[in-house]
C-alpha cells in the first residue's frame, strides 16, 4: 500500500513535468498550427536562465589567498562575488541560495522575448508550410540553440540546487495515517508539482476568462472567421507563442534542482512530450494535461521493482505501449478533436 501511494506521488510529480511541457506545445499547435520541435530547447533555455542568473549573482573578482595553495602549488586565487561586497556575506549567501526561485523573475522577460523573436523571425513564415517543414526547421533551430548553450556552458551538467529551506523531504505518510518515515517526498518536488498546477490553472484561467483568451480560443477553433471579424489575430498569436515559451521556460527553471541542467535536456524531453501531446489529442489543452499525468503515473508504476521483475523491460516501453493502445482505441487521442492533423 505504501509503495502504491509513493509511486502515485512519484507519477504525479513526473506527470506535472510532462504536462507543463505538453501544455506549451499544445498551445502553439492549437493556436498557430505549428509543430514546434524547438519546444524542448525552450525548456532547456529556461533551465539555463537559472544557470545564467547563478553566474551573474556569483560574478566575482579574485583575491589572492597566500595561506592556501592551488593544485599547482601557487597561492590560491579565491573568487569573491561582487554581490558579497555590496550586501555582505550572509545576505549574499542567501540571495545565491535562492537563485532558482529568483530565476523565475529573470526568465519571464527573457523567455517572452525569445518566444516573440522566434515567432516573428522564423515561425510565422512557416504557418502555411507543411508540418514536415515545420518539424525540420524547428528541429534545426533546436540543434542550433542547444549547440549555442553547449558552446557557452559546456556539455557537463551544472548543479543548481534548491534553496536550503526546500532541502530534505516531507513526511507525507503521516498525513495519510501511515507510519512516519515510510512515505516521504522531497519538498522541492512538491513545490514543482504545486507550481505546475498553478501554471496550468493560470493558463486555463487566462484562456477562459480574458477577452484575449476568448479571441485566441475562437482563433483556435476557426482562424479564418476570427480574421474576418477584423481582429488582428496575428498579434495575439505572437503573444501566445511568447506565452508558450514562458511556460516552457518556467518549467525548465523550476526543474533545475531536480536534475542538473545540461544542454541536451530539451531533446530528452522532446519525444516524450510529443507523445504526451498526441496521446492527449492534438490541439486539446485538457487532453495534454490529462495525458501528461496518465503517462507519468503509468511510467511510475511500471518502474516498480515488482513490475519489472514480472515484465522485464516494461519500464522502458510503457509510455510507448500506452500511446499505441490509446491511439488505436481512440483515434484522436484522449480528448482530441476531429480532423486535426490527420492529413
Amino acid at each position: 500500500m505504501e509503495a502504491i501511494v509513493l509511486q502515485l506521488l512519484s507519477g504525479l510529480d513526473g506527470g506535472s513535468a510532462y504536462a507543463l511541457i505538453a501544455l506549451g506545445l499544445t498551445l502553439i499547435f492549437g493556436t498557430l498550427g505549428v509543430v514546434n520541435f524547438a519546444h524542448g530547447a525552450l525548456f532547456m533555455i529556461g533551465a539555463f536562465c537559472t544557470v545564467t542568473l547563478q553566474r551573474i549573482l556569483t560574478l566575482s573578482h579574485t583575491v589572492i589567498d597566500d595561506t592556501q595553495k592551488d593544485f599547482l602549488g601557487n597561492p590560491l586565487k579565491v573568487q569573491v562575488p561582487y554581490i558579497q561586497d555590496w550586501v555582505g556575506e550572509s545576505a549574499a549567501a542567501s540571495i545565491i541560495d535562492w537563485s532558482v526561485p529568483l530565476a523565475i523573475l529573470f526568465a519571464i522577460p527573457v523567455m517572452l522575448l525569445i518566444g516573440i523573436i522566434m515567432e516573428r523571425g522564423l515561425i510565422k513564415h512557416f504557418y502555411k508550410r507543411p508540418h514536415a517543414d515545420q518539424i525540420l526547421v524547428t528541429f534545426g533551430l533546436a540543434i542550433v540553440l542547444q549547440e549555442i548553450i553547449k558552446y557557452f556552458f559546456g556539455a557537463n551538467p551544472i548543479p543548481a540546487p534548491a534553496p536550503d529551506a526546500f532541502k530534505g523531504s516531507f513526511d507525507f505518510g503521516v498525513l495519510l495515517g501511515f507510519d512516519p518515515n515510510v512515505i516521504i517526498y522531497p519538498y522541492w518536488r512538491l513545490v514543482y508539482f504545486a507550481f505546475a498546477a498553478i501554471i496550468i490553472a493560470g493558463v486555463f484561467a487566462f484562456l477562459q476568462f480574458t477577452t484575449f483568451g476568448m479571441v485566441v480560443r475562437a482563433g483556435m477553433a476557426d482562424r479564418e472567421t476570427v480574421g474576418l471579424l477584423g481582429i488582428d489575430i496575428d498579434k495575439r498569436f505572437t503573444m501566445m507563442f511568447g506565452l508558450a515559451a514562458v511556460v516552457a521556460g518556467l518549467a525548465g527553471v523550476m526543474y533545475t534542482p531536480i536534475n542538473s541542467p545540461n544542454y541536451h535536456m530539451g531533446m530528452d524531453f522532446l519525444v516524450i512530450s510529443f507523445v504526451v501531446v498526441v496521446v492527449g489529442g492534438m490541439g486539446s489543452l485538457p487532453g495534454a494535461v490529462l495525458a501528461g499525468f496518465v503517462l507519468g503515473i503509468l511510467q511510475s508504476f511500471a518502474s516498480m521493482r515488482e513490475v519489472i521483475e514480472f515484465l522485464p523491460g516494461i519500464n522502458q516501453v510503457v509510455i510507448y505501449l500506452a500511446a499505441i493502445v490509446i491511439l488505436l482505441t481512440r483515434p484522436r487521442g484522449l480528448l482530441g478533436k476531429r480532423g486535426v492533423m490527420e492529413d
Partner: protein
Amino acid sequence: MFGLNAKNTRLLFLVIFLVAFAPFLMNPFPTDSAMAQFNAGYPDLMQRFVIFGIFAIGFNILFGLTGYLSFGHAAFLGVGSYAGVWMFKLLGMNIIPAIAASVVVAGLLSVVIGFVCLRRSGIYFSILTLAFAQMMFSLAASVLTPITGGETGLTLSLNDPRIFGAGAVDGNIPVPGFFGLEMRSTYEMVMGGWSFSFNTGYYFCAIIMVLAFYASIRIFQSPFGLMLRAIKTNQTRLNYTGLNSRPYTLAAFVISGMYAGLAGGLMVAMDPLAGAERMFWTASGEVVIMTILGGAGTMIGPVLGAGAIKYMENIVSKINKGILEQWFSFMPDGMSDIFVTLIYPFIGKGWHLTLGVVFMLVIIFLPGGLVEGGQRIKSIFSRKKTEDTPADGAKTPAE
C-alpha cells in the same frame, strides 16, 4: 530506355555516372593540399553515401509519394542489421544470405508495424511509428542484450558457429565477402598529387544502389505510384473512386521498410556490427531530414540529402583547430585569429551547429530541398539562354 521516359533515363544515367566515378569526384583535391580535408573519397564514407542513399530512396517511396511521415523507419534498418550479423554468426561471412535475411526480416516486421500504424494517418501515424521504433530501441539496448548485444552492439566473435564458413582465419574473425571477394579490398590509384580508392564494398553497394534507384523510378512512374501520389493529395476521393487505400499504403510501407532493411544489411556487410542506436529516434529523424533536405517526392533528392548529411557528419566533424590555424596561416596573425575564432564554433565538435544552420537555411530558402536549389540555378542559366534564343520558351521547372 529500360521502360523509363527520356527524363528519367537521363537521371538514371546521371546517377550511374556519379556513383561509378565517385572515387574521382569525391577526391577533387590533391592529397597533400590543405583542401584535402574536404576529400570524401575514402571507402567507408563512400559506402555510407550510397547505403544511406538507399535508405532515403526507400523512405521517399513512403513519404514522398503517400505523404505518410514515418518517424520510426530506423527500426527497419536496425533489425536488418541484426539479421545480417546473425547470418554472419550462424552461416558464414558471405554477404548474400546476410543481405537477403536483412531484407526479409525488415519486410516482415514492416508488415506487422505497417498493418497496425496505417490504421491512423497524419501525426497519429507518425507517433505510432515512433512509439514502435522507440520500444524496439529500448528493448534492444537492454533486456534483449543476449540477441542484440545491448548498447555495445552485436559483434562477431571467434566462437561463432559459422557453419558454412571458416571459424577463424589466422586467429582472426574472417571478413565479409561476396563468394571470396572481400568487401574491404581496395585498389589505390595514384595520379600526380591525387590518390583515388576503388573499394570492392563500395562498388557492390553502388550497384545495389543503382538497382534500388532504378526500382524506385519504376515505382514512381507506375500505376501503383500514381495511386500512392493520389493518396497523398486526396485519400477521400481515392476511396470514393473504388480504390482501397490501405493495401496501397501498406505495400508502400513494406517496400520502404525493405529498402531500410537492405540498407541495414549492406551496412553490416561493409562493417559487421549492429548497434541499438541505429534504431534510436534521432536515426529515424535523420532519414526524414535527408529526404526533406534533398527534396521529398523527387527521385534524386533523398540521395543528395543523404550525401549532404553524411558529409557533414564525417568531414566537418574531423576539422580541428590545428587544421583551421593551418588554413589561415597565410594571413597576418591578427586576421587569422579572427577567422579561426569565427569559424571554430562550426567545425570539429561544433559540427552539429553547422548541421542545424544548414537545415534551417535550406528549409527556409529552398522549400523543395537541394533539388529546388539545383533547379533554380538551372533556371537562371536557361533563362539566359532563352534571352538569346527566344523561340523555345524556357520550361518552368516542375515544383
